[in-house]
């Protein structure tokens, strides 16, 4: 994960220390008499600061170090914890859906955008029959991913979801990892909000429910 960010360098903001990164700007007293004001005008006029400004922009133009990201062609990398459109994951072992239809995500959703309907299937197991997220209402808070006991609903990295209508639903089948992705083994586990920390299985000695 991103442990190395913890020992990030912080500026020494203590201005009373001699070797701090911050220093007080020397501001001269304002002149009170006319001769002092005249001297200030002369000094400011001939200090050449205008030419410093000209040089700085010219230097940047010659250096041609352009920082523009040509967005539709180029994209910035987004963080693994980014919360964009939801994804439904499958179990690695059996390729079946992880979602058990418990309805916790629907319950916790603070903008009321998740709708889940379940029924019992032929073998009396709970099965998700309808699942939709109204992306027009979703605020991408991540509670659903956090509350999910099965790590079934997570956030993905797909953020280009502009739509010409306000009610822009996403359905269960669209969010679910396709089977060919499972066969290729390319389903990505979500590292962000609500996910387990890495190497969690080494730390948990015993399932709490194993009585």
């Amino acid at each position, binding site marked *: 994960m991103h442990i190395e960010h913890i020992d990030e360098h912080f500026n020494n903001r203590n201005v009373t220390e001699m070797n701090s990164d911050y220093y007080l700007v020397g501001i001269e007293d304002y002149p009170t008499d006319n001769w002092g004001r005249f001297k200030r*005008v002369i000094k400011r006029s001939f200090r050449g600061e*205008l030419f410093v*400004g*000209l040089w*700085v*922009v*010219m230097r*940047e*133009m010659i250096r*041609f*170090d*352009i*920082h*523009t990201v*040509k967005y539709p062609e180029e994209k910035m990398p987004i963080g693994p914890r980014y919360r964009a459109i939801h994804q439904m994951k499958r179990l690695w072992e059996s390729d079946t859906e992880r979602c058990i239809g418990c309805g916790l995500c629907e319950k916790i959703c603070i903008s009321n955008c998740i709708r889940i309907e379940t029924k019992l299937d032929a073998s009396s197991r709970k099965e998700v029959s309808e699942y939709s997220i109204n992306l027009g209402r979703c605020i991408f808070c991540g509670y659903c991913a956090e509350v999910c006991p099965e790590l079934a609903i997570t956030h993905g990295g797909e953020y280009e979801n502009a739509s010409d209508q306000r009610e822009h639903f996403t359905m269960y089948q669209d969010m679910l990892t396709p089977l060919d992705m499972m066969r290729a083994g390319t389903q990505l586990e979500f590292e962000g909000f609500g996910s387990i920390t890495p190497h969690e299985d080494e730390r948990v000695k015993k399932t709490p429910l194993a009585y």
Partner: protein
Amino acid sequence: MEMAYLIETVIKIVVILLIFSALAGIGTYFERKVLAFMQRRLGPMNVGPFGLLQVAADGVKLFTKEDIVPANVVARVFKIAPVITAATAFMAAAAIPFLPSFTLFGYEVHPIVADINIGILYILGIMGVGLYGPLLAGMASANKFSLLSAARGAAVFISYEVITGLSILAPIMMVGSLSLIDFNAYQAGGITSWILWSQPVAFVLFWIAAFAETGRTPFHLIANDHEIIDGFGTEYSGMRWGLFFIGEYANMFFISFVISILFLGGYGDGSFLGALGLLGKVAFFFFFFLWTRAAWPDVRPDQLMWLCWKVLMPIAVLNILITAIVMM
């Protein structure tokens, strides 16, 4: 003879109008590109190669936009104000020799519409009339921010016309003529005979005043940047607004020509190299307008007035006095 002269003049006028309208458009492209590069951006990129057709796209947009005349404006004045800005900019071009005279199909062409012997006076006068564009636009717009900007713009224009006139007086005394052709002939002897070397103070003063006359950035008070409003052009849309733009950019080109001819030798001895030199100087001055826009902040209106009346005008008067004493 009369007929030939008339036809020649009309052709010259049409050519100048077309070239400088196009240059005004391309000038906006260069301004965007140069500003972008100086701010580490790319500028227009998507329309045509390197965004070159952005100018055409903007033109199509301006021409096809709805022409809105808002309620409560003085419609007739409102409509004529942008025409004044564009027209005066192009009228000033009549007395500017753009290139040395050359021979085309055995016919000698003088690239100046009217070689009048009071060329500089005429240009300054027409630039003074150009003030009516922003002023009438702001007063007719029924918008208090337009009015504020027009008032500020009028104060700046009128003040800095004093600087323009006074600073140019010393070179005029040296040359003894108001014609730009005579100015060019006076400096035909190469770089050492440029008026820049004998009148550096006048050159700097005129250059500073040129920024105020064209309303470019260090003195860009005709736009209400601090109120995040465009100023006198706020209520305009479509091609009426575009005329203000064309006027501003044409003015920048023309004042670049005037500075180059007055102080930097113009086209020199009239050779091909001299003509290229004139275009190079004009290009530099135009680039400098964009360069300062990227580098310098605007000054406050009171600072601008202070600079004009308490610093530049005394220096200009002193410059005239010293020139006169030396000439005696």
